[in-house]
């Protein structure tokens, strides 16, 4: 490297799936220089995907740390935990931390993840509503659900995270209400026909829905252990806990949007390079290629984070060794699976109704599925699907469920 | 996981894991395979099976059936103790009794029946298992009954008869040394997968392959000529081969001149069967027939790989195979290297290249002193050629009491569904005074017995087996018997004491019997016991070529008989001395009247690789691979009947109807229905009459009759789920 920063460490901001994957990849690709990791969490990386399982009591807390077998002291020279970056000086190749320290870098990987947001949700006074992202969030929800059996829980937001909270609540025998502004849950990923069936199935399993509604006001009860929520339709209902699961936003407050190309996240090329030299991004902060739209956008998925981290690590190692990076991130499509009790929902691509699309619906007593096709040349090409199925204990009706991977591959093949 | 935990997971044998490998043989399909079993035993229990690497035949491999040995041995349906029937026959209601009670009751009942009705009124029957047959026959002879019978009344024996009638004794293919092999109805993919590696190598080396089969098989795809004939027309095809070979002068003139009987008559017979005529009968091309006939005749040495049942499961089965076997003699490929060679059995139907006294052990010579056997009037050729009684005649004799009444049935294994018109068979059996069955599982047939005895599987007992290359194994039990199970030979030995048969050798038990049988070979039990995995027999010799030069053939004329002198004796009873072609008794050509209503040819008995009759039906591992009864039909026939792949359909014959799943496949001819047999809930063998038999052998015409198919329309579906 010609710019005089070569002796500095590679700095990784964040310690989640993308960061860990990048760190492993860096070392596998032969980078043996110094490596510094900055994380606002503890010294052990955990999987945010597992936090709802922990909160619901399905797994122990120790199981939330999927990299227990990895000896990070072999890989990382300097681990700065419970630290937050406040700014990056691209010219000086330095990151400023909240305690005032400045950490110089040769290459910087931004993999700081995302945090929950709740636009439009009214203030709750002294009460801090729950979210589900970090281990602290999970600890708090865990305690709340254990403390009060049959707690009345309001989950605001009908996204995947919202459903995971619902699953945790059902596991804890809580009395759960799901609130959403849209007429149906999973507005982005589920076709209305599937969403409606999903809602029915969840109702049968004890979930109450307040759809096409919003919260107008929240009042503390006198003993401050519960809250009266007034909804946009005029209803009032009392809850013990409120969980906000309306969406997430990348943790990029420390980045100057004026000097780096940013949308929702940091725009990256296929080697996870941002518009600023020596700065890379991966995971929930990276705006990478969405194959289905051809546009760059954040698709916050575990698998994307892992694969992007790997590409970033390889690219950083290559550049530091004076080689041209080889491992390209191919882009991805949105895809998700969620299990609530015995109901599995899997989706990939897009099933949105639009001009020229053929939507096929398959319904059986145990399942509802939607397949979206677009005409490409002389063939109808699969561009998205939803599979919703009650997976019975004798798993005789799983054939559609078994095929979700092949459907996803069919969609990917149409773009690759 | 640490290394030890991993080893335990991997089932790695050794002192650290406590896993020991013990050797046995698999007897699930029997006896052409008898693959070597490695049993991984821990704390007295089998935890894994594998093939025995040093086994000379199977080379460390097994098929799906043998691989499921663990579930076969530890099936919850194994009979644990002797049982006495308490409910109706067939009800399955039994009480547990002790071995002493069971054996005393059997002994006293059999002796009482013997006293009152004569010893011939007691039948001694062996089911599928082959290993204890010599002991059972000896037992029957010592008891004084000529009625030693086996399920080989519907399997293999007729094929042996066709060879005996033609050239005196079976002559197996010498595959190793051949230039050309004709697979005449043989599908090793389903029945002998362990042979495939050798076949593959041989084909790679350039051997010519001719496959004759009504189905497209894996082997057929690799054949130089594949003749997909109409079921039951093998005889016509073989005669057309003869036509080409004679017409073109491709036959072995010296051999034919010196060592055959009736060539002129044969010449006339084949002159009439032109390839064009046969092409019409068999639904294959005349050009292919010519090509195949020339290939076989010119490739010398060339061999014919035949099989036990498919060709002889026709109403003209023995003659059809006789026509095939005549070709071996015609081309001079008999008893030469690379041709079909006579190699007498040493033990359990298998040639070992060493002499034994197994045949003497059976005491078959006593037969001449005993009353006539079941079936001897109806199937005199069978009785002439074979030491057994013909079990397909049992229902008739029970029904009529002619020539004498039958009263008791003692079986080492019985599956009544092996017999045509199975229901009538078991209905007649129910009229007997006393039925005993020793079996592994409480089968539907065992439920009809008055006393049921728990038998050992091969891994719980000792047995002696040999292989054609001169290898022998006297196995040791790998595990303790399940429950109170006994080896069949122990049952016979103990029972012979209680019946006071005075048979010291049998009473002395299996080691003494084996010692006596193998004595001429120079082997001893002491030596055999040193080699639980088996050993090469020092005295074993490969069979000599052209043994007939010294001894002639074991036919009445001492020659190969195109015109059979045995069959000649029965010409008055409608049998023919020449291997003439006759249509199956029920075919679209022989019965056009029936064919209007039943237009399709029904072929019962095709095999699937995971099943051998019913023997692995009850094992979850094999059953999961093919859970429902089904039949193969061609897409054209399926479309015409409005049946889709996987749908339930009915197969109806004038005799009855079954409901099965349709497997729509191009592997079968248009117009054929191939039904997999032995399903309790869809018994194919009940679709034909008990007297739909080959008059020479008494074999059922399972592989060609007439049927029709139709969508099941919901019918039977519930009943089919068992």
């Amino acid at each position: 490297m010609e710019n005089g920063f070569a002796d500095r460490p590679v700095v990784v901001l964040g310690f989640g799936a993308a960061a860990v994957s990048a760190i492993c990849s860096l070392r596998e690709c032969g980078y043996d220089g110094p490596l510094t990791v900055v994380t606002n969490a503890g010294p052990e990386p955990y999987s945010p995907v597992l936090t709802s399982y922990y909160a619901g009591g399905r797994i122990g807390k120790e199981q939330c740390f999927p990299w227990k077998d990895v000896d990070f002291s072999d890989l990382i020279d300097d681990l700065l935990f419970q630290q937050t970056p406040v700014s990056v000086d691209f010219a000086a190749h330095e990151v400023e931390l909240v305690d005032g320290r400045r950490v110089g870098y040769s290459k910087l990987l931004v993999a700081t993840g995302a945090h929950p947001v709740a636009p439009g949700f009214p203030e709750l006074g002294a009460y801090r509503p729950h979210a589900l992202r970090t281990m602290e969030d999970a600890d708090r929800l865990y305690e709340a659900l254990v403390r009060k059996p049959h707690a009345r829980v309001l989950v605001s937001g009908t996204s995947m995270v919202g459903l995971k909270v619902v699953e945790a609540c059902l596991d804890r025998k809580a009395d759960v209400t799901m609130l959403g502004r849209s007429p149906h849950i999973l507005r982005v990923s589920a076709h209305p026909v599937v969403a409606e069936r999903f809602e029915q199935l969840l109702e049968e399993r004890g979930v109450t829905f307040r759809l096409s509604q919003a919260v107008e006001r929240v009042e503390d009860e006198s003993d401050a252990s519960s809250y009266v929520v007034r909804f946009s339709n005029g209803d009032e209902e009392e809850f013990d806990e409120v969980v906000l699961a309306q969406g997430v936003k990348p943790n990029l407050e420390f980045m100057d949007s004026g000097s780096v190309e940013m949308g929702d996240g940091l725009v990256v090329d296929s080697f996870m390079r941002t518009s600023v030299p020596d700065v890379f991004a991966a995971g929930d902060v990276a705006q990478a290629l969405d194959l289905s739209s051809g546009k760059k956008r954040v698709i916050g998925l575990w698998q994307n984070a892992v694969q992007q981290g790997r590409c970033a690590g390889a690219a950083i190692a290559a550049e530091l060794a004076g080689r041209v990076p080889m491992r390209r991130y191919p882009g991805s499509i949105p895809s998700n699976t969620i299990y609530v009790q015995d109901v599995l929902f899997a989706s990939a691509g897009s099933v949105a109704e639009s001009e020229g699309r053929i939507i096929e619906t398959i319904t059986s007593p145990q399942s509802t599925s939607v397949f979206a096709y677009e005409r490409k040349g002389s063939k109808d090409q699969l561009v998205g699907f939803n599979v919703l199925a009650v997976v019975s204990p004798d798993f005789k009706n799983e054939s559609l469920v078994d095929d979700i991977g092949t459907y996803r591959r069919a969609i990917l093949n149409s773009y690759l | 996981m640490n290394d030890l935990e991993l080893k335990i997971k991997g089932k790695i044998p050794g002192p650290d894991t406590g896993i020991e490998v013990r050797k046995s043989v698999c007897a699930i399909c029997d006896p052409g395979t008898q693959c070597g079993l490695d049993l991984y035993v821990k704390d007295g229990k089998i935890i894994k099976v594998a093939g025995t690497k040093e086994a000379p035949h199977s080379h460390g491999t097994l098929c799906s059936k043998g691989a499921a040995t663990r579930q076969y041995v530890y099936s919850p349906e194994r009979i644990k103790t002797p049982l006495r029937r308490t409910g109706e026959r067939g009800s399955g209601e039994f009480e547990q009794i002790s071995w002493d009670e069971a054996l005393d009751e059997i002994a006293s009942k059999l002796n009482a029946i013997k006293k009152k009705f004569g010893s011939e009124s007691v039948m001694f029957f062996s089911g599928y298992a082959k290993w204890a047959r010599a002991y059972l026959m000896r037992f029957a002879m010592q008891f004084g009954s000529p009625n030693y019978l086996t399920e080989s009344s519907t399997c293999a024996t007729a094929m042996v008869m066709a060879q005996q009638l033609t050239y005196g004794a079976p002559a197996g293919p010498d595959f190793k040394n051949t230039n050309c092999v004709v697979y005449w109805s043989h599908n090793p993919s389903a029945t002998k997968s362990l042979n495939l590696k050798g076949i593959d190598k041989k084909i790679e080396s350039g051997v010519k392959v001719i496959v004759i089969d009504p189905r497209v098989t894996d082997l057929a795809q690799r054949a130089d000529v594949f003749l997909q004939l109409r079921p039951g027309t093998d005889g016509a095809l073989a005669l057309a081969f003869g036509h080409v070979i004679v017409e073109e002068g491709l036959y072995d003139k010296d051999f034919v001149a010196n060592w055959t009987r009736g060539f002129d008559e044969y010449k006339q017979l084949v002159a009439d069967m032109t390839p064009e005529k046969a092409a019409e009968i068999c639904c294959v091309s005349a050009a292919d027939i010519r090509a195949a006939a020339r290939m076989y005749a010119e490739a010398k040495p060339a061999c014919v790989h035949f099989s036990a049942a498919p060709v002889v499961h026709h109403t003209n089965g023995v003659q059809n195979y006789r026509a095939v076997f005549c070709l071996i003699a015609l081309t001079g490929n008999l008893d030469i290297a690379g041709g079909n060679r006579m190699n007498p059995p040493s033990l359990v139907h298998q040639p070992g290249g060493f002499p034994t006294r197994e045949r003497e052990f059976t005491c078959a010579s006593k037969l001449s002193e005993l009353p006539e056997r079941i079936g001897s009037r109806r199937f005199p050729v069978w009785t002439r050629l074979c030491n057994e009684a013909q079990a397909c005649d049992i229902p008739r004799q029970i029904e009529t009491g002619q020539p004498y009444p039958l009263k008791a049935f003692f079986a080492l294994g019985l599956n009544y569904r092996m017999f045509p018109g199975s229901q009538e068979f078991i209905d007649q059996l129910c009229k007997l005074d006393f039925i005993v069955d020793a079996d592994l599982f409480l089968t539907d047939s065992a439920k009809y017995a008055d006393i049921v005895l728990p038998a050992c599987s091969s891994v719980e007992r000792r047995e002696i087996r040999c292989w054609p290359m001169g290898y022998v194994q006297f196995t040791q039990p790998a595990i303790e018997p399940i429950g109170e199970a006994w080896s069949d030979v122990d049952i016979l030995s103990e029972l012979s004491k209680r019946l006071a048969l005075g048979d010291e050798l049998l009473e002395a038990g299996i080691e003494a019997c084996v010692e006596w049988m193998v004595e001429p070979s120079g082997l001893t039990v002491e030596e055999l016991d040193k080699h639980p995995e088996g050993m090469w027999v020092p005295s074993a010799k490969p069979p000599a070529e052209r043994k007939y030069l010294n001894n002639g053939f074991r036919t009445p004329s001492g020659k190969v008989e195109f015109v059979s002198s045995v069959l000649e004796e029965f010409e008055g009873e409608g049998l023919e001395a020449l291997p003439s072609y006759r249509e199956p008794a029920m075919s679209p050509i022989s019965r056009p009247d029936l064919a209007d209503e039943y237009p399709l040819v029904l072929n019962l008995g095709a095999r699937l690789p995971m099943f051998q009759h019913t023997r692995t039906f009850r094992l979850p591992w094999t059953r999961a691979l093919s859970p429902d009864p089904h039949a193969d039909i061609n897409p054209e026939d399926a479309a015409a009947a409005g049946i889709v792949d996987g749908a339930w359909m009915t197969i109806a014959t004038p005799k009855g109807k079954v409901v099965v799943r349709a497997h729509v496949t191009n592997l079968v001819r248009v117009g054929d229905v191939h039904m997999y047999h032995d399903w309790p809930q869809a018994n194919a063998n009940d679709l034909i009459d008990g007297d739909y038999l080959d008059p020479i052998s008494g074999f059922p015409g399972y592989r060609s009759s007439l049927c029709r198919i139709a969508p099941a329309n919901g019918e039977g579906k519930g009943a089919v789920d068992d």
Partner: protein
Amino acid sequence: MTRKTLCFDSKKCVGCYACTVACMDQNDIDIVGDGLMYRHIAHVESKQAGEVRIVHISMACMHCDNAECLDACPAGALRRDADSGAVFVRRELCIGCHACAMACPFGIPRFGRDGTMQKCDACYARTRFGYDPACVEICPTGALSYEDVNEATAVRLRRFSKSFA
């Protein structure tokens, strides 16, 4: 030790199911209970110009070099065995989320009644100690083999080079 790999030759496979059952025996699969088959056989028929062909394919997890299931598992339940390269699942860590099922292009991950994933692990607990995988050990035709990667390449190239003859 050179790396070995599971090889399959469709020309030799006759669809006999020995591999399928041997796999169940090795892995103690309770097929009527919670167990699932790891290895399957497909019989593929075709008809061209009147000639009928059938090919049998024995299939289980491919243990992909770029195993997407490994990337997709958020629970650390999927691992790659460093010695053999086998991808295996630690069921005690599996949360049953089906992310691997979504990632696998072959539909290999299957879930038992306890909700956890089950699949072939290429018998890494056997190959570690020099034993072949159970499916290979039993295969009567040699269609399945466990070969040195170099030998496997050599065989493939020999086959390819025949096209020049």
